[in-house]
């Protein structure tokens, strides 16, 4: 019987099931968030005193030799209170620069070719399929390949250049896939509009389609880069150093990176190393958050309502 009163009636038979289901959903999300928050809180609490205050070891308060801010700029040391992340930080910056300058042209170039120019045949399909597969290959495999190709074959040695190129290979599939998505998001009417004005295919693609896709491409690039700087395994495999007491000054100098440095520190027995490595993780977290925020800002700012 349908009367107008049905509209106001609260459907009580259904309610318990819905509540239980909602609780399960809340539980799932809470577990994920609580785990993450615990980790971050733990890192912040153990790392902050290395960064910002004096140490307390047992009952003794040890004065830090260095100014706390020097953590970013001082060299590695045998003494956890003196050890700084300087060389690893600079090594990571070197890696980022190399990765950006190689990945952006290669990644966007491959994406533009595949999306706009490649004939739709079996070879193209094969390449597309393998790109997706490559994105899922374990990163140590890339490390082995970097060792074989860049360190040995190309003769770059265990240098920051070899490391950067290895990371480039690692994130290239991700960047290509993201760039292709960005190109796909540009409506076909834009291509047609440009062509109908007497533009050549090249002009239509490079003056209208690609510029419209750039924000999406940059977002993909930044996210790929943030994955690259967090990678440890491929760099260790290709032979990055663990104790570096100098700043890398050329693409061919030896290097270490933040995650490797942290991995190394945390293996030492003294308790203070825990604080030092946590401080390193904080730096890495700040870098990652910054980059992901940049990607988010670019995406929101340039998101278009076609």
């Amino acid at each position, binding site marked *: 019987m349908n009367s107008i009163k049905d509209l106001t009636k609260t459907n009580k038979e259904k309610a318990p099931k819905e509540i239980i289901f909602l609780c399960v959903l809340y539980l799932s999300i809470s577990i994920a968030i609580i785990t993450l928050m615990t980790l971050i809180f733990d890192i912040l609490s153990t790392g902050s005193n290395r960064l910002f205050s004096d140490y307390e070891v047992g009952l003794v308060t040890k004065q830090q030799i260095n100014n706390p801010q020097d953590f970013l700029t001082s060299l590695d040391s045998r003494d956890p209170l003196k050890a700084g992340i300087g060389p690893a930080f600079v090594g990571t910056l070197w890696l980022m620069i190399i990765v950006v300058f190689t990945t952006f042209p290669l990644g966007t170039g491959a994406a533009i070719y595949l999306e706009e120019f490649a004939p739709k045949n079996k070879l193209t399909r094969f390449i597309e399929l393998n790109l997706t597969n490559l994105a899922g290959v374990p990163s140590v495999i890339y490390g082995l390949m970097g060792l074989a190709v860049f360190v040995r074959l190309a003769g770059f040695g265990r240098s920051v250049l070899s490391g950067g190129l290895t990371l480039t290979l690692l994130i290239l599939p991700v960047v290509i896939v993201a760039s292709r998505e960005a190109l796909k998001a540009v409506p076909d*009417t834009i291509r047609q*509009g440009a*062509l*109908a*004005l*007497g*533009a*050549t295919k090249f002009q239509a693609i490079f*003056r*209208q389609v690609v510029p419209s896709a750039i924000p999406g491409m940059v977002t993909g690039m930044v996210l790929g880069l943030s994955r690259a700087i967090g990678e440890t395994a491929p760099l260790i495999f290709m032979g990055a150093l663990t104790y570096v007491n100098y700043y890398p000054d050329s693409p061919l100098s030896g290097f270490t990176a933040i995650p490797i440095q942290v991995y190394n520190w945390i293996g030492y027995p003294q308790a203070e190393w825990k604080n030092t490595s946590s401080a390193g993780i904080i730096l890495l977290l700040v870098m990652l958050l910054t980059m992901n925020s940049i990607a988010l800002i670019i995406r929101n700012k340039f998101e278009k309502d076609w």
Partner: protein
Amino acid sequence: MKGVTLNMENKTSSKIDLDSVFSVKNVSVNYGDFVAVKNVSMEMYKNKITAFIGPSGCGKSTLIRSFNRMNDLVPSAKVSGEILYQGINLYDQNVDPVQVRRRIGMVFQKPNPFPKSIKENIAFGLRVNNMTDNLDDRIEKALTQAALWDEVKKDLDKNALDLSGGQQQRLCIARTIAVEPDTILMDEPCSALDPVATKKIEDLMQLLVNEFSILIVTHNMHQASRVSDYCAFFTTKATEDGRRTGELVEYNDTKTMFTNPIQSLTEEYISGRFG
């Protein structure tokens, strides 16, 4: 008598009265083995508005897209027969589709401004055609011709996507006429617009026809009767394999077409009995 006829023998007499822009002879368009539109022959005239009407799927959009070789973008599309544009076969091997599109502009169903400033939208066509002398003058002239100048002259640097749908469509017309084509093809230019914006575009067409030849595809036969000088009615016919192929039923001057159609099918369509 106006020189409108489908008979090839009378072509000479029609030429005396009107210059032909497009001369279509036995044109069929296929997508793979699917025949979208079959055996169309007709003449279209300079400085006139010719409308293509008919139900969905009758091939009118397909046909208009083969007039500026936009169908080249669909790999499976194949045009057979002859489309002469001012005497030149558009599908001749020596014809450059880019040059064809530069001479024969096109306005699309959905307004498709580039996601850039109003100014850049018009400047793009001028740049790719090396018409960058007096860029600002040309932009102003095009926007004025498209009856948009007064509305946007103060914010030429505004993003074109912030304009209303009707303004966007007039901007698309402006950028089309900026590169000084001879002919403008319009593929259902008002189907995404409200009646007020539609009226503006229709008024605009009446002004533009003094300088350009216009071909318009429309679902709306009232629009065809309001704006066009000539009208072609297409319909679909089922083929043996159950698919539908578009055909030209009748082509005549609009007045005759809407008051005294020759084919009974045309009469049924325009009187609203089907379609």
